[in-house]
């Protein structure tokens, strides 16, 4: 990778659902710097030791609120957080609550690249729209764009920011994907396997 991480630390992967960890987490273990933590075993020390954090759409959002101070401190240490799902709790100052598209029709689910981003480089964003001819898996709404955040991908005719990257005033970066987990391996859409290693690299500050 061209740039060394600004700080050291682990890639913290919060495993929320019961059962096998997601494919993205298994892939991350190959890096040697990743740690998968069952959500119920999470402690403040995990945040202290982390450089990057990935959460899935199954995140216990009520539970994470107990770590809000640890999360804030993690971000302020130039931490990076890749978030999947609908934000329904104010984890960080500046975040808004998820807004679904009401009664989404097919035209409301078109995807548009609004700004180039290394995670999505060379991938035609509309090719994320459908799995086996069905649209909507990628997402059906958006997490409101925090002040100063950059919209990466838009959904629907209004280009609502379904994906965005935010550099916090404190210095860390958060990437929000307001849908099903992106970067899932082995699914019907091969784009996910393509972006998976890039998500890991972005989360660890390697680009």
């Amino acid at each position, binding site marked *: 990778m061209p740039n060394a991480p600004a700080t050291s630390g682990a890639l913290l992967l919060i495993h929320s659902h019961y059962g096998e960890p997601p494919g993205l987490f298994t892939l991350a273990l190959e890096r040697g710097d990743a740690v998968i933590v069952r959500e119920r075993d999470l402690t403040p020390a995990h945040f202290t030791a982390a450089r990057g954090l990935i959460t899935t759409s*199954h995140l216990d959002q*009520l539970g994470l609120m107990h770590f809000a101070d640890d999360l804030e401190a993690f971000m302020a240490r130039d931490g990076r957080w890749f978030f999947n799902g609908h934000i329904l709790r104010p984890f960080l100052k500046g975040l808004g609550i998820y807004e679904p598209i009401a009664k989404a029709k097919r035209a409301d689910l078109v995807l548009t690249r609004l700004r180039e981003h290394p995670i999505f480089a060379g991938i035609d964003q509309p090719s994320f729209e459908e799995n086996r001819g069905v649209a909507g898996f990628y997402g059906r709404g958006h997490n409101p764009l925090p002040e100063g955040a950059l919209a990466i991908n838009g959904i629907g005719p209004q280009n609502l920011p379904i994906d965005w990257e935010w550099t916090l005033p404190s210095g860390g970066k958060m990437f929000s994907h307001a849908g099903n987990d992106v970067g899932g391996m082995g699914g019907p859409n091969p784009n996910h396997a393509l972006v998976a290693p890039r998500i890991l690299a972005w989360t660890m500050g390697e680009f």
Partner: protein
Amino acid sequence: MSILVIHPGAYYHIESFEGSRYAHYFDKLVRPEELADVRLEDFNVVLIPCRTPADRMEPHKARLHAYFDQGGTIIATGESDSQLFLPGITFTPQPTNFWWWLTPGADLGVRIAKPGHSLFRHLAEKMSPGICMAGSTFPRVPRCWPQAIPANLSSTSTRSPPGGG
């Protein structure tokens, strides 16, 4: 009828139990970790929602069994590995067919084993894909209704997936 709901805290649980659509059906929400602080016998029904992580329920196994013993009703829904913390359950995994509704004449393959159960006064076996709703709360469970039930939902999209994947 008083209903206690286990609240594991994922976004789909938050929307289902705290959101304005359904919140009024529930008398109390409790985190799995706080089950010991609640008198289960004060409630007629305990609802354990879809995708409740089993390892957060296992510590309360004895409490749930005791609730059954004193006549309580538990509604246990899918993807929660209920067999790990409730008695008398054998689970047979099946692959999820996310695409059945794209095939004319196909259905999900679910059959009612006990048609006389009171639940089926309100639900029919034959679902219409025309009123499957883009499920945003329970990603893997199609949210469909029999043709005759909520008419106000009949205008929802038919080309959005019924579940995530």
